[in-house]
């Protein structure tokens, strides 16, 4: 079991400092949620972990390995899968192609396991199984999000980086997706780093909470405690 350890991470986004010395640990097998207002640096944090953005300084360790500034395609091979913001699927691809895409890099060596993984995600999201031949562009928002997560899951990740899965979705669908993730985490020991603007939903399932504001960690504590801290909530989350 591996922990994700981020220390003193600094990332610039364009000419803006998006992360300004972020440190925290996401424990293995737990759901850690990163919350904060719009522009707090949440997405940049995930993008830096998965290698899409270059860190200016600081380190990211995944278990014993330092993965700072490795290429995304290398990081995913180490078991870190990133579902970026905005239901990132390829609309002209079929549902199956979108899922297969996530396992391309290991399909030559583990073709049988890839098949197993695909059937597993289809069990997890039966609605996708029904639409397996359809183009991803014809799916609803919730289904696309499920598809994006499935695409990440077939890579058999040990750490799932999930960016705003609730964005633009109906509360009922959000609930469904979050519960699927929760169930997956509890049953398989998957480590999850969940970025959410919707702090209530996230803190409800998370074990641990990290609160970001203007690129800095302002609070890092168990989720339950964070949920109870009304001062913190009103200061940074506005409710």
């Amino acid at each position, binding site marked *: 079991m591996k922990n994700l350890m981020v220390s003193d991470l600094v990332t610039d986004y364009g000419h803006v400092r998006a992360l300004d010395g972020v440190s925290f640990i996401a424990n293995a097998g737990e759901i850690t949620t990163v919350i904060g207002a719009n522009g707090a640096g949440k997405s940049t944090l995930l993008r830096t972990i*998965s*290698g*899409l953005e270059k860190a200016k300084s600081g380190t990211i360790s995944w278990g014993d390995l330092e993965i700072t500034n490795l*290429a*995304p*395609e290398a990081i*995913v*091979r180490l078991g870190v*899968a*990133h579902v*970026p913001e905005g239901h*990132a*699927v*390829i609309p*002209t*691809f079929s549902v199956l*192609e979108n899922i*297969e*895409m*996530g396992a*391309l*890099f*290991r*399909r*030559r060596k583990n073709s049988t396991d890839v098949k197993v993984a695909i059937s597993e995600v289809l069990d997890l999201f039966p609605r996708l199984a029904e639409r397996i031949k359809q183009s991803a562009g014809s799916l609803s928002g919730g289904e696309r999000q499920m598809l994006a997560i499935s*695409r*990440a899951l077939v*890579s058999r990740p040990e750490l799932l980086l999930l960016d705003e899965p609730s964005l633009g979705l109906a509360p009922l669908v959000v609930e469904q997706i979050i519960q699927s993730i929760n169930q997956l985490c509890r049953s398989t020991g998957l480590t999850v780093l969940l970025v959410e603007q919707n702090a209530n939903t996230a803190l409800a399932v998370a074990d641990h909470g990290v609160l970001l504001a203007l690129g800095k960690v302002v609070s890092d504590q168990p989720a339950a405690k964070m949920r109870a801290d009304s001062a913190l909530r009103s200061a940074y989350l506005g409710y």
Partner: protein
Amino acid sequence: MNTFISTLITGTANGAIFALAALGLVIVWRGAGVVNFAQMGQAMFTTYIASNLINSGESYWLAFIVALISGSLLGMIIDLLIMRPLAHKKSSSSTKTLAATIPVIASLGILAILQALAGIFWAGEERGFPTPVNSFYFKNGAGTLPFSAFNLFVIGVVLIVLLLLTYFFTQTGVGLGMRAAALNPEVARLSGIKVSRMRTLSWAISGAAGSLAGLLITPSTNLSPNTLDLILIIAFTAAVVGGLDSPLGAVIGGLILGIGIALVTTYGSPENVFLAILFLLFAVQLIKPNGILGGKQVRRG
């Protein structure tokens, strides 16, 4: 056989080659975001390689294969040596639109260099280029049928290439990866696809497709450092007409151009061929800027 049908057949045979060249352009455009103005320069270069092999007594087929392989190698070299470093530069450049035009300029530079090198190495005399099968039109009693074995060979080869490419892009993992890398590089990278490798592969496939177009078109023209310039322009028009994003569009565009040029030459005046090409290009851009089968949005830069 009447004039119209023979015009159609001539046009289709030429159109198939234009389609191939246009396909090469589309593959690199989709795969690497570059309109490669050097493509037919690369093809010219590899056709010279083939021509030299044949002139030194090697068989057509050996030369054919060597040309295709050197075409894909040349494509890869261009990507690794020039386009990839440029892509890294691009991300650090401040203006996006300008950065997008830089690869175009690079391809023009490559074209100049390839033509100069071919001139220095080989441009003693204008050459022709052989066909692997008879290019004399079939005899039909006293008359002739308006097509040759070579016409059929060209159409056949282009069809096979199209089928292979379709199979490759839709049925294989690497093909899927290449498409993913082209459509959404970020998601592709997050899926573990080595996007820059896929780009190099696009350059290689496109290089081979261009080479093939060169090998097939030069028998009906001559081989000199500049002869294929015209084919590039036609292929570009074909790609735009079909939609730069769409491989099938490129094929349709190629056929439209091939048949259109033949019709204008036969029924109009050959002098109007270039005006017709220009008119077509304008019309498509005004009416359907994304081409016949292009994506919904014109790709900006």
